[in-house]
């Protein structure tokens, strides 16, 4: 075996070892890398009184402004389960019904009281005319469908 060959095999082995070590470490930290919990995960996860992030879609027809003008109540859904959310503050531009959202806060008496609400957008990009045409043709893919897919994957 020439020295070049030996160096090549050493390098291959080292990379293989490094790759497996990283894969193992990431699998072990799986729960800590998760950015948010879905409403379904909340059913099984013990969150207690600590801060966490809740992610899902804003349920259609659930957004209500409170009389004080700064508090918004809405429901976050992953189509299987829903969670009631209360948030006091300004909402991002992309916040709308049927769109993805990630809220940070804690559960207080069955209601998720959010300190911060972030909008999550999906991977679809198209001009407004195209989305109109798709809706009219009845083939428009609602973002909720991809959420169902994600929920099934869990």
């Amino acid at each position, binding site marked *: 075996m020439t020295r070049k060959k030996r160096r090549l095999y050493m390098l291959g082995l080292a990379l293989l070892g490094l790759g497996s070590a990283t894969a193992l470490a990431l699998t072990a930290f799986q729960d800590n890398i998760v950015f948010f919990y879905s409403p379904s995960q909340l059913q099984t996860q013990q969150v207690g009184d600590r801060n966490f992030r809740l992610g899902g879609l804003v349920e259609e027809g659930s957004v209500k402004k409170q009389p004080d003008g700064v508090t918004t109540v809405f429901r976050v859904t992953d189509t299987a389960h829903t969670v009631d959310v209360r948030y006091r503050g300004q909402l991002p531009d992309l*916040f709308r019904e049927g769109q993805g959202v990630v809220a940070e806060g804690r559960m207080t008496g069955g209601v998720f009281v959010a300190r911060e609400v972030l909008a999550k957008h999906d991977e679809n990009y198209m001009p407004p005319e195209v989305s109109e045409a798709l809706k009219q043709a009845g083939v428009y893919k609602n973002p909720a469908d991809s959420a169902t897919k994600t929920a099934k994957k869990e």
Partner: protein
Amino acid sequence: MHRFANPARFLRLSALLLPWCAGATVILTILGLWFSLFSSPPDYQQGETVRIMYIHVPAAWMSLFVYTNMAIAAACGLVWKHPLADLFAKAAAPIGAGFTFVCLVTGSLWGAPMWGTWWVWDARLTSVLILFFLYLGYMALVNAFDDPQRGMKAGNVLLLVGIVNVPIIKFSVDWWNTLHQPASVVRMGGPSIDPSMLTPLLVMAGAFTAYFLSVVMLRVRTEIAQRKIQTLRLSVASGVAGDGAVSDGMQG
């Protein structure tokens, strides 16, 4: 492949290719900017803000592309001891770091109006930040040794260790739930992006690639020239020392 590792052949080839790459950079950039700023529609959800994508996404692709190429060069440098491979990695590092920086900054500017935050510690954003630090760490490490050969070797090992981060960045949005949305172009089932918006994106990606090729060739040529000057100086200095004369004026 070994044929191209010859510095003399590289100098000839790059002299030939450089004007073409530079020309392609200029033309593609003008074309891409015109497409992305004037001749493409706003997004149905994000409106005009979507135009940040035409800088952000090519920069992100290039940051991964450049790093992967540097790691391949590092492997060639370690196994076959090609001097040109070392020079390529060293020359490409600041360009890759620049792309990563542009990606992070534009992403932040995009996140502020759309997500409602400049930065979050989700898997995608964090792994790209680590990529930026890998670039900086590599540049610092290569220059930290008195013996450039040892610096190159240490840097190559760092590049190969850091390669595990590349698939993590790419698949972070699929493996974990993140605030960052999943891939729109390179994904199963084809792009989920309208052709009228895909065109400016791909033209800009072409412009970024042509820019990288031009600058990296220029930088490798400069490195080779510097090595030559270094060798000449050393031989002159040893020649002078051999004569017993002390003269710094010659090296001017």
